[in-house]
């Protein structure tokens, strides 16, 4: 009697679990810096992630299973990111996390996800996120090193070998500066001036005056709005005629709007998203790009950018993994690692056990600003 009751309870519980499991949406966590200094990353990322998840759910979910996206704002703070990653894992019980937006926050979160064994797809660019490879950590943003390589190739082509670099003193700039220094030698570049500016600085004429007094043949500026726009204006004010290169950190229309005339002629590496319409039809990414840009425009009234693209790629990687039958943390991790030839926004991703970043330098194109718009250089 007692035994039967036990057995019955057991089956009842099992049944309930299965039913609940099938009916319950799959929970995905997201950590974005929606406010705080990196909100230029976090906001488009959040918008994009929400947009993609809504689209998936509207079309009936993945194999009938809907997704639920739990988004928390980290405000660009590493401590908060760690706390919120814990919250996602322990309270919300998510199967995977996308984000955080910045390298610093990602580095802070890595020990947590490694310990709790939850797959993380970071939207930050720092190459140390996946180098060395950590089992549970992936990233969709292109490594800064790839952007640096693009710029140096172009400089080589123009027979320039003395450059001045001006980087912002935050995570983005520090990572860029590190990569510029690492790659300089292999491209035969000498960095004759290595200067920085603060993320909230309002005037960079002092640094540029110093550069003007040096023998630099080109200036590479590594930062995110609004600093580079100020620099572009300062360059014009000081009458500096050297070619000015920027990073992919300013590859949004906002930069052209802020810098105005001073933006003309600036060259920068960018994800293909800003020149989607100029790509040849044969480009494997073209469909994804055009689709993304248009739906973002429809929903939020502005063009989808490079940064939102990182979230697009992250969610779609998860979608592919779930489509392949993965519903647990462990299986999702395995499926992501097996992803190959996924043509996303940031490039064509092919992951492996040795490579959790999945991109090559073809992920970047070099563009020039002309007439207030982007122009692909190649």
């Amino acid at each position, binding site marked *: 009697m007692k035994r039967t009751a036990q057995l019955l309870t057991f089956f009842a519980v099992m049944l309930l679990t299965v039913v609940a499991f099938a009916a319950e949406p799959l929970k995905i966590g997201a950590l974005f810096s929606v*406010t705080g*200094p990196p*909100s*230029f990353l976090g*906001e488009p990322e959040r918008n994009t992630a929400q947009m993609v998840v809504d689209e998936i759910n509207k079309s009936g979910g993945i194999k009938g299973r809907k997704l639920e996206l739990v988004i928390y704002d980290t405000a660009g703070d590493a401590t908060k990111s760690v706390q919120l990653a814990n919250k996602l894992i322990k309270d919300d019980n998510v199967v995977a996390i996308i984000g955080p937006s910045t390298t610093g926050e990602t580095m802070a979160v890595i020990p947590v996800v490694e310990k709790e064994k939850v797959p993380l797809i970071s939207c930050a660019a720092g190459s140390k996120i996946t180098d060395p490879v950590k089992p549970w950590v992936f990233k969709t943003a292109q490594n800064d090193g790839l952007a640096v390589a693009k710029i140096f190739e172009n400089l080589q082509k123009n027979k320039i070998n003395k450059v001045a670099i001006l980087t912002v*003193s935050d995570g983005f700039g520090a990572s860029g500066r590190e990569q510029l220094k690492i790659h300089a030698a292999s491209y035969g570049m000498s960095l004759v001036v290595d*200067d*920085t*500016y*603060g993320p*909230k600085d*309002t*005037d*960079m*004429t*002092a*640094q540029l*005056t*110093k550069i*003007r*007094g040096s023998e630099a043949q080109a200036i590479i500026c590594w930062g995110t*709005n*609004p600093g580079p*726009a*100020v620099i572009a*204006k300062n360059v*014009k*004010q*000081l*009458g500096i005629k050297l070619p000015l290169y920027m990073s992919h950190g300013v590859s949004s229309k*906002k930069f052209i*709007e*802020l810098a*105005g*005339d*001073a933006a003309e002629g600036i060259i920068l590496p960018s994800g293909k998203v800003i020149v989607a319409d100029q790509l040849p039809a044969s480009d494997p990414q073209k469909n994804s790009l055009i689709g993304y840009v248009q739906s973002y425009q429809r929903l939020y009234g502005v063009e989808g950018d490079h940064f939102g693209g990182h979230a697009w790629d992250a969610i779609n990687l998860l979608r592919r993994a779930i489509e392949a039958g993965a519903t647990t943390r462990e299986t999702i991790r395995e499926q992501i690692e097996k992803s190959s030839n996924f043509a996303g926004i940031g490039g064509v991703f092919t992951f492996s056990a040795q490579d959790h970043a999945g991109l090559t330098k073809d992920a970047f194109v070099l563009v020039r600003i002309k007439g207030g718009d982007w122009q692909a250089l190649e």
Partner: protein
Amino acid sequence: MNLTDQLTQYILSGLSTGAIYALIGLGFAIIYNSTGIINFAQGEFVMFGGMLGVYFFHKQGLALPIAFLLAVVVTALCGVIFERFAIRPLRRPTPMNMVIITIGGSIFLRGVAMIAWGKDTHVLPTFSGDEPISFAGATLLPQHLWIFAITILLIIGTKLFFSHTISGKAMSACAVNRRAAGLVGIDVRRMIMFSFILSSAIGAMAGIIIAPLTMTSYDVGVMLGLKGFCAAIIGGMSSGLPTVIGGLLLGVLESLGAGFSSGYKDAVAFVILLLILFFRPQGLFSRGSSERV
């Protein structure tokens, strides 16, 4: 390009940044002198000025001068509301409580701006073109001249206001001794409100005149406020020339710092400030006096 030209450029750049710090510092000093409050929301007034300027110019399509005026008036109105609902209700204000209230106020105002205008950075067109002007081997933009001109006008204006109008004199009296001023029939509350109007309006102007050069967004207030606060302290919290010189000095120190060691430029500026404080604890320009018991 030789070293003197470089130096001239550093100093000119520093002066133009410093002029803005001076204006913001003036706002701090005016409120401090009439109320004894260090208004940590001062930077937010600057931000409001810039953002409202952008709003009226870009969103409402008004002419720049009208957008300028409206932005200043609306910011001053915000100053009044802030004083009325956040500063005045506290019955027995201690300096510490006031610090927290103004910090709360600055967070609140930043939030309002973020919700109202989003997190994007915005820019205003320069007042009169972008053609650089050469001056003794250095270059300036016409906007810099506007900054200098408006700063000088405002300084002269406040000076005249404090020494030649009844309200100004009444405010100076409040600064010296609030209780005594109350006893001789000055409406101290109104003077406090006046000081908030004045400093928020000055802050707003600073915010608008730099927006074409430095851009503006909902979070620029913190750093600008901090620098303005430093300027005011170097000037010994005087609502006159010393604070202006404090601002200019800070600007030039920063610019020179950036010219020689850009990563540490703020550190250089602050180390010098600390040294100044250690050796001239009454501020740079006031004469030493003994403390009364």
